[in-house]
Each structure stands twice: as structure tokens, then as C-alpha cells.
């Protein structure tokens, strides 16, 4: 790695830490007086600053055609953004408001015997952490497009659409930005834990959201622990999926809005709405499905006057507040819509935009691809999901499945409890009103799950997590009334979830230790020659889409073109200067017609793991750089 890149990446780290400190002081200045909430909201500024800096380099690359997405460019803009925000934010606030020594209202949490469930969860994360730090990135979507996208940006120096490979690579990619920095820094071994900090942030947000609706500190800790044991959260913390990243920042946005309703100064209100918008934009720029949640949050902004503390005499124009929220959201997501409009003529590309059955803007009808169940089936499946957790094939807990035993035991009952409170008790203050807001958002999530989200549960992750603080209103009462019984029930349910969840990483870790599969090629079961190809070697992948990332090689320097359904023509291969073809059984024989290729690797009879399909690698000899060059040893 060049010295300039090392200095730039170190500068990004320093600027990020500086922005985190500024963000924390910004939250304090906005009147956030719970330390946990200030920490969670403090993460918005560095994350939004980093996302915005990368987007600026992306815009420059898009307009100029130059490879501008580089560590020096990102570092320069992030330092500038941090310096400016530090100057602007802190200059507008009185010094006593931004002092980190000011009195906070964070209560001391006396956990006592409630340390037991906390320790159970920490033990589970320790097992996952050991597994993750001794392996390479996993997760079908991550290996198919999230991580290949990050590598592609580093190779091209731009975030332009390439229209090559799977269509998913054209979706917004905020979730691939930090992986991209790790790829720049040659820190592939940290990619499996890249989203672990998001789990910590999720714990803080769940605590803050529970406290915001009058849950005691102990109850809020239970909410935090339960959120962290939702299997989807645990597995996504150690995979390259980006749903957790998006879910966390959408909930941070809601937390900022909660504090907006408590602000005592018009400037604080504006800053908090901007903070909420930036956070929502980070989520929207990571996954298009969050457009729905951003709209729901905008409706909350529209209703803020009704949700305010009656003792505070601040009123503002709702439409102006929504405009500020939307503008801030676009700061962290607008790049993707601009890029897709410029390059594909459709801001939502690769999704088609349809009105009344007519396709207004070209793209893919994702509903037709995903919707394989009738509505009634989706409704019954979704409503029974917490107790049944069906999944076929594969293990039931994973990045896309599992709510866990604690969720099944407490949350549905807790939601009915909150519904009863809303229906039969008049809201006494703004805290009760926020409980209604939470409930309405969760109910919207259930409707969305069975309709727009095609019963894919990870799409509803923020709603799943938000339902936990809502349910702890009941648990808080239960803990106070039946302390020992509640502790036993909570611990037992967590132990059930933790046992099921940890079996997988423990088994995989022990399996790797037994077989000594510590290196990349053994882990991904790809030939070692892939790791030895010269940088920039172009490989056509006609095996599984999830082989895209493994084929990038140990230096992440190969260029991989993956085809999904139709085999490409010989002309396409020549135009793309394909040098190697990677196939797995069943062999795509017609692909090789008209091509001058040489079989250089075939493990049909020699592979050790008979469960893995046989692999063949061909060298294209009629064109490309590899012609005449010696192949790496085929071992």
C-alpha cells in the first residue's frame, strides 16, 4: 500500500473520531441529557460525514470520469466537513450547552442479579466474535454483491454503474462504504466484524427508545439485551449484510425526533430534525426499502407539534420541518438517485417505476421475482412467525431469519398490553403520545411485512427492534411486581435463543480448527491458483453468484464478471477481455463453443469435500493478457 494511502486512511480514522466527539457535544447542545442517547446520536455526525464525503468523490468521478474515489480524496473532504461542522455547530450553541461536564440525567442502573442475562448475551457475542475473527466474510448477499461492490469501487476509483454482473450491484450502497475503506486498507480479516459496532449502537438505541416511553433504567437494559439477542441482529453483526446498518440508523433517526419534542430552543429543534434527517438518509442510502420508513418518519416530523411537551412554548411550521428533514436525508442518500438518473434514466434503478400497471421508468419488477406466496399465506406465516420461525432449507437462525425465544415470549404479549393502554387510557403526557407513535409504526411494519416486503422478515428489522422497547412497558411492570419469576423467565428464554444461535459459529470454528482450514482458498473452497493470478486478471464466474467475492483472490485484485441466468456470448467474453472462466457442475458446455480455451484446473476426482460440486477453471487462450503467460500452479 502506498504511503499516501496509509496517511489518508489514518486521517479518515482521526477525522471520524473528531467528528464523533463533535457529534456527542452536538447532541448535548441539542438538549439530549441522557448520556446513552447522546452517545447514540453522537454517531450520526461521523457516519453522515463519511457517507457524504464518499458521495462527493463519487459525484466528482461521475462527472469527470476520473478515478476520484480514493483514500486521499475521501480524507480531505471528511476533514473539511468535520472542521466545518465543528465550527458551525459549536459556534451557534452557548458554551455551557456543549460542555461534556454538564449535568446529565443518566441514572445509575442498579442491575443486581439482572447481570445474569447481560452476561449470557455477552457470552454469546464472545463466541461469535472468536468465530468471526478467525474466518473470512460470509453471507450470500454479502459475497454476491455487497462486498464485491466495495472492491469494485476501490478497483475503479468510481461508484458509477457498470451494468455488469447481478442487478443488485446497482442499488444504493451506503452499507458498502466502510467495507470499501477496509479493502483500501488491506484489512480483509476485519470485514466479518465490520457491522459489530452497529450491534453496540443498536443496544444503545433500544435503551434510549425504551427510556423515552417511561421505561425504568433496568427495563431499558432488558430491552437492549433482548434486541441484541434477536438472531437476525446477532448473525448480521458478523456478516456482510447491510440490513442491521440501515435498521440502526433509521431507529437513531426516531430517537432524534423523540428529543426534538423535548427541545426548549428553536435552534435545538432545527438541529435535531437535521440530525434525524441525516440518520434517515444514511439508512435510505443503504437500502431502498427504507423509503417507506423515511416516509413514516416524515409523518412523525409533521406531527411534532402535537407530540411536544406542553410546558414548552415552541411552535414551528410542520411543512418547513419536513422540508428540512427531507433535505438532510438527501444529503446522505441523494447521490445514488442522481447517479442512477444520470446513468440509467431512473432514480430507483434497477427497480422499475410503475403506475397503474404501466412502466414509467425502466427496470426490474422485483415483486414478480420475490413474490412466490399468495397474500393469505404471507399473512398466516408472518403472524405465526415469532413462534414458528419456518425456514427451508438451512439452519433456522441466520441473517434473514429468527426472532428468538425472548421475542416470542414477551413481545407479542407486550404489544397487546401497549395496545390496551392506548385504547383504554387517555395519554397523560408526551411520553404516552410517543408510545402511540411507536405502536403505529410497529403496526405499519406488520402490514408492510405481508404486503410490500413479501414476508421477508429482515426487511422489517427496524420494526422488529422497535417493538421490543414498546413491549418492555409491560415487562417493566412485570419486573417490579414479580422480580424473581421475571428474571427466571427472561434468562430461560435468552438461554434457549443463545444455545440455538451459538451452535453454528461454535461448530464452524471447531470444524475449521479440526481441518486446519484457516486460509482463504480452503475457507471458500476455491482453487489456490485464484489467489496467485496477477492483479487485474479478468475472471468470468458462471458458478454460484456467491462465488463472486471468493474469486477476487486474497489480494482482492482480480476483476470478476458474474453471470446469473443467461450464458454470455463469445463476443461478450472477447469484449470484456475475459482471461479465465470459473465453472462448477453442472457444466455450462455451450458457453465454450467458439472459444479457444484450455482446461487448467479440474478437481472432479481429487476434491476432498465431496459435498462441494466439482470445479473447473479454463484459460481463454485466443485473447486477453494471459495468452502465452504461464498459469499459476493448479493446486
Amino acid at each position, binding site marked *: 500500500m502506498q504511503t499516501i494511502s496509509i496517511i489518508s486512511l489514518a486521517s479518515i480514522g482521526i477525522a471520524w473520531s473528531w467528528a464523533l466527539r463533535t457529534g456527542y457535544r452536538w447532541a448535548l447542545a441539542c438538549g439530549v441529557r441522557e448520556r446513552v442517547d447522546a452517545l447514540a446520536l453522537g454517531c450520526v455526525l461521523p457516519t453522515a460525514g463519511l457517507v457524504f464525503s464518499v458521495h462527493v468523490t463519487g459525484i466528482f468521478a461521475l462527472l469527470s470520469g476520473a478515478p476520484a474515489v480514493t483514500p486521499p480524496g475521501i480524507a480531505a473532504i471528511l476533514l473539511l466537513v468535520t472542521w466545518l461542522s465543528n465550527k458551525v455547530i459549536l459556534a451557534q450553541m452557548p458554551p455551557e450547552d456543549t460542555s461534556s461536564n454538564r449535568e446529565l440525567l443518566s441514572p445509575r442502573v442498579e442491575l443486581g442479579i439482572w447481570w445474569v442475562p447481560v452476561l449470557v448475551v455477552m457470552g454469546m457475542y464472545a463466541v461469535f466474535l472468536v468465530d468471526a475473527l478467525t474466518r473470512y466474510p460470509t453471507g450470500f448477499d454479502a459475497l454476491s454483491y455487497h462486498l464485491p461492490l466495495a472492491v469494485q469501487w476501490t478497483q475503479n476509483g468510481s461508484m458509477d454503474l457498470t451494468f455488469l454482473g447481478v442487478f443488485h450491484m446497482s442499488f444504493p450502497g451506503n452499507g458498502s462504504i466502510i467495507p470499501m475503506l477496509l479493502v483500501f486498507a488491506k484489512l480483509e480479516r476485519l470485514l466479518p466484524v465490520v457491522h459489530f459496532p452497529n450491534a453496540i449502537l443498536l443496544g444503545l438505541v433500544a435503551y434510549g427508545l425504551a427510556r423515552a416511553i417511561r421505561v425504568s433504567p433496568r427495563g431499558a437494559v432488558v430491552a437492549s439485551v433482548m434486541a441484541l439477542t434477536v438472531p437476525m441482529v446477532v448473525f448480521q453483526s458478523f456478516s456482510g449484510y447491510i440490513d442491521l446498518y440501515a435498521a440502526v440508523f433509521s431507529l437513531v433517526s426516531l430517537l432524534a425526533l423523540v428529543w426534538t419534542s423535548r427541545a426548549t430552543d428553536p435552534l435545538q429543534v432545527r438541529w435535531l430534525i437535521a440530525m434525524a434527517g441525516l440518520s434517515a438518509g444514511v439508512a435510505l442510502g443503504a437500502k431502498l426499502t427504507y423509503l417507506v420508513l423515511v416516509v413514516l418518519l416524515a409523518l412523525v416530523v409533521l406531527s411534532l407539534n402535537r407530540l411536544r411537551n406542553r410546558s414548552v412554548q415552541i411552535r414551528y411550521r410542520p411543512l418547513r420541518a419536513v422540508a428540512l428533514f427531507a433535505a438532510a436525508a438527501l444529503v446522505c442518500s441523494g447521490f445514488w438517485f442522481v447517479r442512477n438518473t444520470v446513468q440509467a434514466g431512473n432514480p430507483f434503478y434497477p427497480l422499475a417505476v410503475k403506475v397503474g400497471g404501466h412502466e414509467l421508468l425502466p427496470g426490474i419488477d422485483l415483486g414478480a421475482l420475490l413474490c412466490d406466496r399468495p397474500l393469505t399465506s404471507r399473512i398466516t406465516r408472518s403472524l405465526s412467525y415469532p*413462534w414458528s420461525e419456518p425456514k427451508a432449507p438451512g439452519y433456522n437462525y441466520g441473517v434473514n431469519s429468527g426472532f428468538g425465544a425472548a421475542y416470542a*415470549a414477551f413481545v407479542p404479549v407486550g404489544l397487546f398490553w401497549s395496545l390496551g393502554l392506548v385504547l383504554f387510557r387517555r395519554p397523560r403526557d408526551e411520553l404516552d403520545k410517543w408510545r402511540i407513535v411507536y405502536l403505529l409504526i410497529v403496526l405499519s411494519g406488520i402490514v408492510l411485512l405481508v404486503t410490500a416486503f413479501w414476508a421477508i422478515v429482515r426487511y422489517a428489522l427496524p420494526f422488529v427492534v422497535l417493538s421490543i422497547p414498546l413491549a418492555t412497558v409491560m415487562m417493566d411492570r412485570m419486573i417490579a411486581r414479580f422480580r424473581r*419469576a421475571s428474571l427466571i423467565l427472561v434468562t430461560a428464554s435468552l438461554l434457549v435463543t443463545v444455545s440455538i444461535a451459538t451452535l453454528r459459529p461454535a461448530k464452524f470454528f471447531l470444524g475449521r480448527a479440526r481441518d486446519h482450514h484457516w486460509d482463504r482458498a480452503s475457507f471458500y473452497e476455491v482453487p489456490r491458483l485464484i489467489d496467485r493470478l496477477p492483479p487485474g486478471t479478468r475472471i468470468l464466474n458462471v458458478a454460484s453468484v456467491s462465488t463472486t467475492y471468493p474469486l477476487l483472490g486474497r489480494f482482492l485484485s482480480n476483476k470478476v464478471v458474474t453471470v446469473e441466468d443467461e450464458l454470455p456470448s463469445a463476443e461478450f467474453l472477447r469484449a470484456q477481455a475475459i482471461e479465465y472462466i470459473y465453472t462448477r457442475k453442472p457444466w455450462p458446455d455451450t458457453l465454450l463453443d467458439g472459444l479457444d480455451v484450455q482446461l487448467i484446473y479440474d478437481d472432479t476426482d481429487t476434491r476432498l469435500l465431496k459435498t462441494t460440486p466439482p470445479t473447473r477453471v479454463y484459460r481463454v487462450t485466443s485473447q486477453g493478457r494471459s495468452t502465452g503467460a504461464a498459469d499459476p500452479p493448479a493446486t
Partner: protein
Amino acid sequence: MPDEPGTAGLDKSRAQTDDAHLHRDWSTSAALGLCALSLIVYVLCSESVDTFCREFARLAGKL
């Protein structure tokens, strides 16, 4: 907005009212019972538990 550390928006009179209400609260007992029942239903009906038991038995058999 929490009024002082630990009270989280509850003023003292309200906290006392809630405490008094707590002791004659049958709904909390019912909720606890339902939660316990939910956990039992989960253990009996969840495919996750079923898969875990089969995989655990398979691993134990190998050992």
C-alpha cells in the same frame, strides 16, 4: 423528559399512585402467565428448536 435521575418522567405522586395500583394489578399476573405460555409454545412449535435438537443430536452422535 425525565425529571430527575431514575424517575424517567414519573413525578413522585404519579410513581406512588402507580405503586399502589401495582399491588392490586391482576393484569400483570395474567401477562406473566401468557409470557410463560408463549415461551412453552415457542419451544414446542418453533422449527428453530427442532432443527437445533436434530443438529445437536447429530453432532453428539458423531462424538
